[in-house]
């Protein structure tokens, strides 16, 4: 598993405070190109905050103070001039599916359009490709004009994945994507992720420990804003990971 290629995301000594409350307390980790990195940990452990620092949507959280560095492809995200271009490099899928109040087609075409793609055929091709990648195309191809918000929860979540893929991101961040959908749909999306991992880097924040075990090459365990352990998934889920707390969390002794 040791690769010589430089990591696509490097996080070093990352601290984030919301007012007086510290959400991340000195996180250092890296994400390798084309791997699935699982991030597990109980609620309030800073998982979502970590994702927000990567695409800098943390900027829009009032009162958030960030120190330390986050590099994407070797460049410090806080020195990036065009934050919008940075965000287009990263696909983000939120815990609850958020269909924008637009048609299915427009939902997926939204980001390319905002980035300046005007050609109708190009848009149509891209929408189809992304919907296929998200395993949604067959279900919606006949009603691309209907509202995205009218789809079922699982379909909406796949729609948001298609949308997150629509601007050809190099990194796909999923934040507890299965929290609001049924197990069958979850498995379908997991299959989609297995498909994607050959081409794209995936950061999978998950509340389902077994999901990390099924998908991730490496897994990080966050607790109260600190990185307890980062290692190969087999090690994390084995009987003797480096840290006792990891074992206890993974085996449901606390959390």
């Amino acid at each position, binding site marked *: 598993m040791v690769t010589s290629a430089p990591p696509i995301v490097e996080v070093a000594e990352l601290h984030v405070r919301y007012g007086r409350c510290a959400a991340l307390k000195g996180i250092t980790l890296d994400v390798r190109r084309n791997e699935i990195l699982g991030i597990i940990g109980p609620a309030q452990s800073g998982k979502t905050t970590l994702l927000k620092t990567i695409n800098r949507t943390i900027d829009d959280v009032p009162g958030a103070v960030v120190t330390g560095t986050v590099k994407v492809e070797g460049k410090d995200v806080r020195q990036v001039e065009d934050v*919008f271009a940075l965000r287009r490099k990263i696909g983000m899928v939120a815990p609850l599916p958020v269909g924008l109040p*637009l048609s299915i087609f427009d939902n997926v075409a939204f980001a390319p359009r*905002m980035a300046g793609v005007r050609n109708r055929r190009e848009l149509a091709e891209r929408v189809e490709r992304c919907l296929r990648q998200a395993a949604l195309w067959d279900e919606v191809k006949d009603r691309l004009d209907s509202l995205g918000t009218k789809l079922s929860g699982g379909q909406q979540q796949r729609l948001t994945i298609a949308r997150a893929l629509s601007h050809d991101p190099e990194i796909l961040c999923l934040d507890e994507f299965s929290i609001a959908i049924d197990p069958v749909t979850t498995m379908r999306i997991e299959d989609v992720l297995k498909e994607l991992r050959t081409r794209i880097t995936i950061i999978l924040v998950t509340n389902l420990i077994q999901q990390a075990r099924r998908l991730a090459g490496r897994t990080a365990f966050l607790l109260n804003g600190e990185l307890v352990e980062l290692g190969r998934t087999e090690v994390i889920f084995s009987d003797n990971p480096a840290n006792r707390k990891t074992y206890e969390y993974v085996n449901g002794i606390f959390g």
Partner: protein
Amino acid sequence: MLIRRRWEALTEVAIELLIRLCGISAILFVFGIFFFVFREGSGFLFHGFKFLEFFGSTEWYPTSQSHVRYGVLALIAGTASVTALAMLIAVPFGIGAAIFISEFCGSRLKETLKITIEMLAAIPSVVWGFIGLTLMNPLIMKLFGAPIGLNVLNGGLILALMSLPIIVSVGEDALKAVPDSYREAALALGVTRWQLVYRVLLPAAKNGLLAAVLLGVGRAVGETMAVLMATGHAVKIPASLLDSVRTLTATIAAELGEAPVHSEHYQVLFIIGILLFMITFVVNLTAYLFVRGIRGK
């Protein structure tokens, strides 16, 4: 003991009745007002009222000895022109301010702005009329070389300022009602702030924003004192912004005191009241239906 218990039960019933009465009193009042306005005007409305003349003529000579005419076309035009100008100014500014307050400014500035705008709503309308009369009047004469500064422009500007607060506060509520998850989702897709507003928030909040505009229209149509003082009181269809006009509301306010009770003139003024009632009712109902449209989604 038994007496005391019975007493408690009785007060319980009484209090419940009282609260219920408070609840439905608003409906009673509205119907009551409509009933009395209608009753005052109904005698003439059903006997001798010329529908065509009323809506089709610009001649308003209610006190003429030989040539009595009750045409309110010019008055309708007065109300419409002043309201239209007011909305032309207040809608872009109001919606713009709502967008700024809701999406672009910091929390401290936001509070300051909201309080200031609410203060704007608290200024009595006679004060607005006073401003129109003493401040805007000479200013308009000087700037535009108009013979008189009491005209559509003056009334429209005053009305714009008066209906601005309601447009801003209802508009801001509408934008605030758009779930934050839309904002987060759109920003994560790499859109700029303006693209977010234009492509996501405005479409998502469009019903609420329309309701804000319609409530502003209702405010402008119904306003009396300020337009009475600021529009110059000339019964004619305006040809330009610098023409004086008179509105439906101002006519009632100015003439009701002088019309002999139950005379034709008196009754026609009440018919104008019914007309105004219907206009604001339709506007408010439309606004309500749009607002309900947002909730229904």
